[in-house]
């Protein structure tokens, strides 16, 4: 299945902004992090299709996964 992976802020360093990638069906958010050597403790916010998701969330074909380090503002 295909998953749209989007990285932001410092997570982009040495990686990419956005990529459409093939994953095995039933892959989870943690599998995406592992593929790109993103330590889970460096990922503060994970959204799947714009909604909060945890590392064990099982992905579907066509999902968008957006990963952020700790960020803030206001």
């Amino acid at each position, binding site marked *: 299945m295909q998953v749209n992976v*989007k990285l*932001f*802020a*410092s997570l*982009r360093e040495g990686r990419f*902004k956005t990529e459409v990638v093939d994953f095995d069906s039933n892959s989870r958010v943690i599998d995406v992090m592992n593929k790109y050597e993103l330590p889970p403790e460096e990922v*503060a*916010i994970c*959204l799947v299709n*714009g*909604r*909060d998701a945890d590392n064990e969330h099982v992905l579907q074909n066509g999902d968008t996964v*957006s990963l*952020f*380090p*700790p*960020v*803030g*503002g*206001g």
Partner: protein
Amino acid sequence: MKIYRVNMSKLSFTMEAVPEEWRLLGGRGLTSAIVAKEVEPTCNALGSKNKLVFAPGLFAGTMAANSGRLSVGAKSPLTGGIKESNSGGTAAQRLAKLGVKALIIEGIPEGDKWYCLHVHKDGVEIKEENELLGKGNYEVIHTMTSRYGENTGVMTIGQAGEHKMSLANISVKDPKGHIRSAGRGGLGAVMGSKRIKFITLDDNDGAGIEIKDKEKFKNAAQVFNKGLLSHPVSGQALPRYGTDVLVNILNEAGGLPTKNYRYGQFEGAENISGETMYDTIMSRDGDPTHGCHVGCVIRCSQTYNDKDKRYLTSGFEYETIWAFGAGCTCDDLDVIAHIDHECDDIGIDTIDTAGSMMVAMEAGLLPWGDGEGMLRMIKEEIKEATPLGRILGNGPNFTGKAFGVTRIGTVKGQTMPAYEPRAVKGIGITYATTPMGADHTAGYSVTANILKVGGHIDPLKKEGQIELSRNLQIATASLDSAGLCIFVAFAVLDYEPVSHAIIDMINAQYGVNWSVDDWFNLGRSVLKTEMEFNRAAGLTEKDDRLPEFMEEQLPPHNTVWDFTGEELDSVLQF
């Protein structure tokens, strides 16, 4: 400490002792207490009965990091209610060093002369001013710095303040001679109504800051300062990307208000994002990080240069970039930076100016996304105070009425900032209920809704939002009274020793024995004072509501604003 009082009707100055009831107030707590006590709530905000109050926070001038925020208070010509607008810059610490707990300006001079004030250790001089009338804030700051030297504080109004527009702000010189603003609520118009073009501050030989137990204060301040630096948001993310890093996350979460709040996502988000801004600043030899006041360790501000590597603007904030960007569907960061520069120079709030532009686009005065057109309207209409400029300069509601537009994203006349209430529901509660009019900083629920700081509450659901907003509004009213930057909240919410350090610093500096309850009671009492003023001014529960169009579904999550009036009325019941 003392109170400096200037009466512009009599052109007189008095120095007063601080009443006991104000001793443990500072910043917003003090400006709101003074306005509530001395200003008739029903008065005309631009008339002689309104007063303009400047107050440093409780910790101003001490070694506590990020404690140099300035509060400016008055009755607001934009909202019709009480207003505290908060700014960085060097003024608060100078007032504190002079031993001035508050500077109160009252009355309106007879005749049509303009004045400037010079604040120093012996009082305030009131002088006639002609040279800088009609000039922008940058020229005022440069001229005053040349006249009095680098080590001079400046608070000034631009052309918009002179014309008493409701968008007019008060600009404050920052450590680099650039501009920070007490932006919201039209306080520049109040200063203009008193015919004061600028105020300079000389803190030489000031009385200094009294700290009862210096050793205890130092120890607590060290815990506090270290906590700010060790939190990943205030220690790493904000210094690097500034606040604009929020564009992408709000866009991904479907909460970036786009095209006057029609959508929650903007196609051009990446072009105006913090990541793009950082790369642009670095490629043009700008400065990605500096503080808005001495002692700021977070340093979320920056210097943004143009394509020729010349200074263009600084303090270039997420809310400004959202407002003229996604709000008006313009994805050109350079044009938005030009607009930011002009807004600073003319002295107008960026969020509410963009609110007027959104209404102007609804009315067909400008095409959607026309950044150059917005820049032109600001320079040729608002700055010149043409009839159209005066309409736009009096805010989105005024503009909407003039052009028959009903889709206006305001609460109490003030524009809802960069977080969609239907997709970040906690912030909608704050917009509706804060006594300030729509103001994200009054109870920044984005922390738990989106940023996962201080816990997590699903932004798309109703559960937990009322309590979240209430608690944050109380805590913020306390922080604003201490003169602390709102960004200390990331560490305060996540690290208990940091929040305890604040109480320890109060006890050490003022020789009291406050508990955590006393700290939050301060915030509750500030909010109560402000709400009572608003009720007496004629604002009612129906003013604590979001605009009607919030009932429409918002893509991509297709959520609606679904809080009842009763629920909203319960938010600040305590």
